[in-house]
């Protein structure tokens, strides 16, 4: 083993000690009005030392371990098979997708309320991630403030319903369009920016929106948020036990079935499902259209794209606007699902998670992004017992993914176009 590795490993082990000991080793204990600093228990000290040893050994033999990891994909028996013919693959894919969607339609009637609720959240994240995929994955514009558009959608519905009694179905297009307008407005100042600079400006924009919502107390209720956001109705039928709005009827009475609070949850899930499918289909279509190709061309080489007559302004703005539109969609559904929103739901972490979904799934790949959205939303719920270590596990999973499959779960596949020879 090279001396270089030994030195590096020692360094890493010491860093581990320096970081881990103060964080895990010292406890602040309140005694009366004072706070006392307590030293670590022997057990903690031992585990910290053990961790340092593990880090040391890992770094020492890193090359070997990484080589082993590199071999792991070779164990996958499917890795080397021939790719399927495009026409057959498309047929297979559409069959499977149809089956999945039918399954998703029936599934909520047989499972618990909690699962359906979680699934609705997953669908909201799918909408968000598909929208961000347009901005980051296709157009290559790193947007760290995406949650702002989500907030715009949610608050549009909340405010409209609070002040004007607007229903979900009216608020849905308004919220999405307003979010799109915000996307357009943000697009203008950042037209000339790329990469890091763009990331910083969008990050700032996301914070501005959140802080505005937090401080415009008279309008938004500030940190107290807005409650009492109505549930969606089905052709004027409400899902509550009693009808809240005049002129509406209630769902269970109309159909003569017993009232169940589950109806509402399932209905919301179905709305989210339909909207997520619409989002996926629309974006899929856009990707195959001139505008989609223009996004990718801009990502690949802006100068070449401009030299061919593509206007940077319209291509970038369309990406921002369309991405924001679907975030507004997701925001409206979110507001309706929660019934209560506050600026706390729209912190930077949300942007980061949606971005993580896009990167994990594979930039530009819709199926990958959908899978990643499911994984990233459900895994933390499954790992509830370790809730304290959730972010730790999340971070570790990200690092492993980037080492193993930097291209994402399912990297984008290019469409095969059949050409006929022209005379």
């Amino acid at each position, binding site marked *: 083993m090279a001396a270089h590795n030994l030195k590096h490993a020692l360094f890493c082990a010491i860093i581990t000690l320096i970081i881990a000991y103060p964080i895990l080793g010292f406890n602040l204990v309140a005694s009366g009005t004072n706070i006392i600093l307590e030293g670590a228990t022997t057990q903690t000290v031992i585990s910290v030392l053990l961790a340092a040893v593990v880090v040391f050994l890992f770094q020492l033999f890193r090359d070997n371990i990484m080589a082993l990891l590199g071999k792991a994909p070779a164990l996958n028996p499917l890795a080397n098979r021939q790719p399927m013919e495009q026409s057959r693959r498309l047929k297979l894919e559409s069959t499977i997708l149809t089956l999945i969607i039918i399954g998703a339609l029936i599934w909520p009637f047989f499972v618990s309320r909690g699962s359906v609720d979680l699934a609705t959240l997953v669908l909201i994240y799918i909408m968000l991630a598909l929208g961000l995929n347009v901005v980051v994955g296709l157009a290559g514009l790193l947007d760290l403030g995406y949650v702002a558009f989500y907030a715009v959608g949610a608050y549009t519905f909340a405010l409209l319903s609070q002040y004007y009694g607007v229903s979900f179905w009216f608020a849905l297009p308004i919220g999405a369009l307003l979010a799109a307008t915000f996307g357009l407005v943000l697009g203008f100042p950042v037209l000339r920016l790329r990469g890091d600079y763009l990331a910083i400006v969008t990050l700032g924009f996301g914070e501005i929106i959140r802080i505005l919502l937090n401080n415009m107390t008279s309008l938004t209720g500030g940190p107290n948020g807005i409650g009492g956001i109505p549930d969606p109705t089905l052709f004027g039928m409400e899902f509550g036990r009693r009808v809240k709005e005049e002129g509406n009827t209630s769902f269970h009475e109309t159909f003569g079935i017993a009232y169940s609070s589950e109806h509402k949850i399932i209905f919301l899930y179905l709305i989210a499902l339909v909207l997520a499918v619409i989002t996926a289909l629309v974006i899929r279509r856009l990707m195959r259209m001139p505008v989609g190709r223009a996004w990718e061309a801009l990502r690949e080489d802006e100068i070449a794209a401009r030299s061919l*007559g593509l206007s940077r302004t319209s291509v970038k703005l369309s990406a921002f606007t369309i991405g924001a539109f679907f975030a507004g969609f997701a925001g409206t559904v979110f507001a309706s699902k929660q019934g209560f929103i506050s600026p706390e739901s729209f912190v930077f972490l949300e942007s980061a998670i949606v971005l993580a979904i896009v990167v994990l799934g594979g930039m530009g790949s819709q199926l990958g992004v959908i899978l990643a959205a499911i994984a990233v939303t459900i895994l933390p719920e499954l790992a509830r017992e370790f809730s304290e270590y959730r972010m730790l596990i999340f971070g570790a999973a990200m690092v492993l993914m980037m080492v193993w499959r930097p291209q994402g779960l399912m990297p984008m596949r290019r*469409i095969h176009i059949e*050409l006929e020879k022209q005379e």
Partner: protein
Amino acid sequence: MLEVQNLSMRFGGLLAVDQVSLDVQEHEIVSIIGPNGAGKTTVFNCMSGFYKPTGGKILFEGNEVQGKPDFRISRLGMVRTFQHVRLFNRMTVVENLLVAQHRHLNTNLISGLLKTPGYRERERKSLDRASYWLDRVGLLDLANRDAGNLAYGQQRRLEIARCMVTEPKLLMLDEPAAGLNPAETRDLNLLIVSLKEDYNVSVVLIEHDMSLVMDISDRINVINQGRPLASGTPDEIRHNDDVIKAYLGEA
């Protein structure tokens, strides 16, 4: 069709291009040659709108275009290639050609989302044009490869094809033969002449390969240290003493 009058470009204290004039008639191949750093590419960048020239005029078909944004100039029919190939590497070869035609396409979102007959017709036409040009430059079999995976010579040809699908009137080629082997250079030679003869495109060419330049140029402009040194037919340039001293070298 193109007239450049007293073009100047200053970067701070450096006068990169100083009073350069040149003109291109229809159906003509005009070359710009000169030592490295003479300002040839800067002239190109001014003409294609990447730089805003600090002095002088550029007239394309009688209209002043200096200082216009690059994408507008290219929509007028002046399209360029780059010294270092600039393809959309992670897109397929045919997609590269489709992107180039988007100014011809009605990019209306609704008609595309609904796949209206008019939209399909336009898509089909641009596919036909793409496959015609791929065939023309011998890349039809590679249509669905990623552009970044092509061999260098193929990338050069794809870049030219990508310009041609935009149906330009004036093609500006910046060192198209750089990095090509002699056989590929010969093919390129034939291709450029055919663009002029068969597709009625005028060509402005920056090139160091003298055999190519002397072979196909109708006229040649020589630039040295940002200043025009000489202009004339290949024969006149070959025997011009100043040019020999500054660039061609004594034989």
